[in-house]
């Protein structure tokens, strides 16, 4: 349902490095999937990757592929130039359909308040940075800008 976006490689953008407990997340992203975890004891999903459930404390946690659908929870439109990023850049927190929230960028949209109403429906896509693919989000009806 999602495909890795090739091109747009920007080697000077910040490239994160996985730790053992987050490696499956980054491996999935490289394969074009947004994988997050769910507790198999209390059934609640969570983000960011951890080895125990932040809700009930259980170590019975499992990975699953999220739908990639999300809504715009909050954001700023940053005018501070970051290496490799366009100015302005939309720095957002999105709420995944499954519930957890994550920080991301909103791409393929006019970086204006008018084009970015809260709760805007979004879909994940992946931005390649060297060996790493970073999840970013675009409006589901991203064509009409």
């Amino acid at each position, binding site marked *: 349902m999602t495909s890795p976006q090739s091109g747009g490689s920007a080697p000077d953008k910040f490239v*994160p490095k996985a730790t053992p407990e987050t490696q499956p997340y980054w491996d999935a992203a490289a394969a074009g999937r947004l994988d997050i975890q769910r507790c198999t004891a209390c059934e609640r999903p969570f983000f960011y990757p951890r080895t125990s459930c932040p809700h009930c404390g259980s170590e019975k946690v499992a990975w699953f592929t999220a739908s990639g659908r999300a809504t715009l929870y909050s954001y700023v439109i940053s005018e*501070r130039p970051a290496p490799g990023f366009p100015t302005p850049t939309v720095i957002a927190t999105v709420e995944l359909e499954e519930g957890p929230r994550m920080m991301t960028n909103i791409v393929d949209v006019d970086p204006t308040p008018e084009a970015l109403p*809260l709760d805007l429906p979004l879909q994940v896509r992946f931005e390649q940075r060297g060996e790493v693919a970073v999840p970013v989000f675009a409006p589901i009806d991203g064509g009409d800008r």
Partner: protein
Amino acid sequence: MSGQRNNRDVVIMGAAETDEVGKLPHLSTLELHTQSARRAIADAGLTKDQIDGLATVSTPGPVQVAHALGITPTYLDGTSVGGTSFLLHVRHAVAAIRAGYADVVLVTHGESGRSRVGAPPYPRQSDSPLAQFEMPYGVMGPPTTFTVPTLRFLHETGNTLEQLAEVAVAQRRWSARNPRAMFREEVGVDDVLGARMVAYPFTLLMCCLVTDGGGALAVASREFAEAHGTDKPLVSVLGTGEAATTPMVSQMEDMTTCRQFTLSSQRAFKEAGVGTTDIDHLMIYDAFAHVPLYGLEDMGFVGRGESGAFVAEGHTSPGGRLPMNTNGGGLSYTHTGMYGMFAIQESVRQLRGEAAAQVDGVETSLVLGNGGMFMSAATLILGRG
């Protein structure tokens, strides 16, 4: 007013800032600590050899500061949870003094935030949770992260962008009265909204300063202070609280409320045996203009969605019924990076009656500190005498 325990048994007996705050390229981070420490020791009427406790954040750390001053501490606190840390140091010092672990705890802050003299480079991690899940998105420090919750806050509470700007307007009214403040020119809402955009909805005038400076406090038992101190008014530590939630702003449970503001203030109110209506003077850590709005609502000074109108109507301005951030705050007075110490210093000055913009009759003052990007918080309720 008081609980079972006499809550005037631990006091701030000495307080001082560096001789200057602002742009100080001739002073290192360590010197900003030690200069303010020496001033606070003198303000307390003590000598360095009477100090047996040292508390400060991890850089340069309590051992370095103590050694530079020629103090051999037998109580140490290196709690380092952002700009509110100094409020936690006071809280821990109260407990330590009650436990008999120390007679006098010196709490020090110094930060070459602007000039970066003797300061470590900003850490460049690539595999911390923050590095993996926030830094890949073009974030450039607090103006682009701490600010992210604001649009959701405004949307859900009904507070407005103009009211957000009113926070900066109100604080200029205070800094205009403070000769030490970096920005002293009064501004209007249009000036704030029309200033250079930093990260929508935040313009430059809604963001804190970046300065150099330091401050220090001497905390002791009332008994010790009365036996060894000066005849300056003592400041009682009536109640304290601390709490923390998330190291990443994107992981706030609810971006319209800061849970640790509520948790830490509730503990402080309970310990002090007072409520919001007993507070004569308020300091809320204002790294950015939205933080005081959260603080007013989350501590219960106003109802949900009422903070913006409260500030806009002038209640926190000079002459208002709840004077807030009377030094001009991080937005206009000074903000070295870890501002909490300066909020405490202004509370102490107001309680002693020696503030630049002195409010009449301040008997009880509350200081709310923020650490990180809505990461941690602490509350101090301080009383005159």
